[in-house]
């Protein structure tokens, strides 16, 4: 057991975790974040993706103890007016929905690093996430639309 501190979706908490406990399980149990989910347990599907300091992490492979002091964002903690969420909804980028929060977080990471990704860059970035319902076209369109909207917003802000 170790005591660590995590800041999840803006909420800071101290908690005890076992040495081999996965970040995935800690997020679900201690913070109730239903948006991180196990799909494969081996880092191959992306259903468990969270952002740690803006970088995507497969929480199914990550031991929680190593994240002492980290700032973590999950899809259910995004602000109400999040443009990535809005564009996923508007572009119908969901079927069963199970994989989608993982894609949302990947989209956040991508747009954070590369505000105007090309089609190829979007594909490269999402390659490690699986949507078994086959919602890829809609997800792709949603990310492009979110990029456009974010650019317009930034322009307004700097104008």
């Amino acid at each position, binding site marked *: 057991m170790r005591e660590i501190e995590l800041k999840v979706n803006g909420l800071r908490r101290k908690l005890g975790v076992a040495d081999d406990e996965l970040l995935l399980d800690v997020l679900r149990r201690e913070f109730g*974040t239903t948006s991180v989910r196990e799909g494969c347990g081996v880092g191959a599907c992306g259903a468990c993706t969270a952002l740690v300091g803006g970088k995507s992490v497969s929480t199914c492979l990550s031991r929680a103890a190593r994240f002492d002091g980290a700032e973590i964002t999950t*899809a259910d903690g995004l602000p109400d007016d999040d443009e990535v969420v809005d564009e996923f909804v508007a572009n119908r980028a969901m079927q069963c929905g199970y994989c989608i929060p993982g894609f949302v977080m990947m989209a956040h990471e991508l747009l954070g690093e590369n505000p105007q990704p090309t089609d190829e860059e979007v594909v490269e970035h999402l390659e490690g996430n699986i949507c078994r319902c*086959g919602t890829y076209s809609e997800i792709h369109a949603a990310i492009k639309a979110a990029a456009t909207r974010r650019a317009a917003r930034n322009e307004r802000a700097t104008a």
Partner: protein
Amino acid sequence: MTTVESRSSVAAVGERWARVDGRAKVRGELRYAADQPVRPCLDVAVHRSTRPHAKITAIDTSRALAAEGVVAVVTGADLYAEFGDRLMTGPAFSDQPCLAYGKVRYVGEPIAAVIAHGVKQAREAAELIEVSYDELEPVHDVDKAVQGAPFVHDELRPSIVFGDLKHLRGKRDTNVNYEYNLRKGDPSSVSGTTVSYDFWCPPTHHVPIELPYAAAWCEGERLELMATTQTPSYVRQSLADLLDLPLNRVRVRTAPLGGSFGAKMYDRLEPLVAALAWTQKMAVKITATREEAFLLTTRHGCAVAGSMTADENGMIVASTSDVRYDTGAYADVGPRITAKSGLVAPGPYKIENVRVKSRCVYTNKPSAGPFRGFGVPQVTWAHESLADELARQLGEDPVEFRRRNMLREGDIAPVGTPMHSADFLGSLDAVTEAIGWGTPFVKQEGTLVRGRGVAVGVKAVLTPTISNAVVQLNQDGSASLLISTIDMGQGSDTIMAQIAAEVLCLGEGDVRVIQADTDVTPYDTITAGSRSTYHTGNAVRLAAENMRDKLVELAAERFGVEATDIKLTSDGLVSAQTQETVSVSELLHGHFGARGTTLTAEANFSTSWQPYDHENGLSPQVTEHWFAGAAAVQLTVDTATGRIHIEHLAVAGDVGRAINPAMVEQQLSGAAIMGIGHALFDQMVFDEGQIVNGTLLDYQLPSIKDMPDKLTPIIIESPHRTGPFGAKGVGETTIIPLAPAIANAVRDATGVRITTLPLTPERVLTALEEQP
């Protein structure tokens, strides 16, 4: 593309309503089964067989029992002592125990369960169980299995679910648990040009991203269960039989599913948690790991030896198919697949002389069950490759050849049932037009060769089945819909709401679908086989119409006019005679004299069939209706690497009427993308009965990188006379012709006919090298 009924003033059917809970899905706030609040549960893990076929001679559970956190260890023998033969469940044969006793029949079969405080403790303790075996000779492939011993089961024991299996009771000394034969005319009596091949589709896995989960506990004298299942009504019956309880003492709840595609049907984890909860009087839950999910069910591997003959006029005159479905150690729904898919083995063509022999065969592998397409993609792989090859050998355009031979409205399918609302021609024309069939293209660029291919598919909807619906109209004008159809991504919660809203003139968001709970929601056969839009949709339509009639009665009373004088509109109820209007809300308030009251209406919808003749397999009505779909593809094959790249894939499905076109397009595309996996790389690999690629690191699935450069989903609407607003299902139509369309394009590009799936680069390269 006509419409069956005129639109009412408020349009709901045919509109692109947003998916219910779309935002909750995107934010990850939707609660799937494992996220639902239930009482605290102990965790279950199972110890699995390491042998494909063996007698269990001893089980030592002492080390597991002594392990940290362990509460109980239960073996198959313990459960058999409690339940006897009732331990055996299954939709077709009572052949599958939730824990093996006496004998194991595949590597990975559960033998004993550990109940512990915590998943980790349970899984670690399960490893400590020691089993001694007396090995028996295993049988790994269908061709050996049909020849004789060794036998996977000593005796075949049909369950009571399928009436047509009763005659098998007591049958011994065979691995063939079901055989369907179609005999029409005599294929050996005709001559012409014949092509014949042996085809193979390997077993594949559904891999819904949500893992299977089940929790169960006793509530006094009742058993309660929350699980990832698309068949709650079936599970309730199955558990009631297992525990020998009346139906009202078993409660099955479920939640929206994170995908299923057939994986979460019939008996999966549910009998195990129910048996443990009931015998141990504990609340227990089990979550399968991905590796374990691969062992729960698969798609049938399938061998087809097929031939097709055409006469000098290019008419198909004969077709033969010897189909062998590998059902693994347990039959599950394999016998039904064997018959219902065997009967479309000749394809969507007019053929006078037909022989189909379709067999369901036990082997020592994990059990195969339903998978999107229900066995039809496997036989379509054969008939669409044969039709294509026959056309090419006749020197004819594969599209023209198909058009000439295709079944049209009113034609009798080889199985003896007439076609209605199955627009093969429209589907074929739409997809070929979309990819520019007939327009010239550059055949070769360096090592890349380019080709085009097409295929069509036919499938019968599951018949007979039963659906019920209850509509509850609230005094404020909002409605709740009680059905046991499960939304697993296909969007049924949205389209069922649209059907009810259309009848009751309600708006988007006014109808809420209640999650399946067998204590509350009425019987529905299953959510599968693309039956729900038609069957449950009709039950919902009828229940809503009953509700409309009730409202009309109340309004007639209120206005003092004849009921025939009243019309329901989006503004409420209107009298044509007096022009008086009353809103639903006011009407109900006036009737009950209180706010918050409810008015309830219900309906049942059932379909019937005429069972096929056991001699010749023919029936004048073998199904309620047919599905038609087509795929056309343009692709390149790299002759240096064997890699296939899809430039344009067009898919079409005849859905009768699209209740929600946006969701229909998603189903058409989703099935096509899954089909790309089956065509190019997706397969379960076994070595001596052991899965060697049962993790997502090793099992390849289509990613965004495997998307075609262009994917065109096309909705065909040939309204069904008795469908709700003309609608039928859609979820399977485009997976059916997908693999042969791709292989036919590879044939076009390279001249090579490949008959084994998937078309991996190695397989393509080998075929190119062996090319004469």
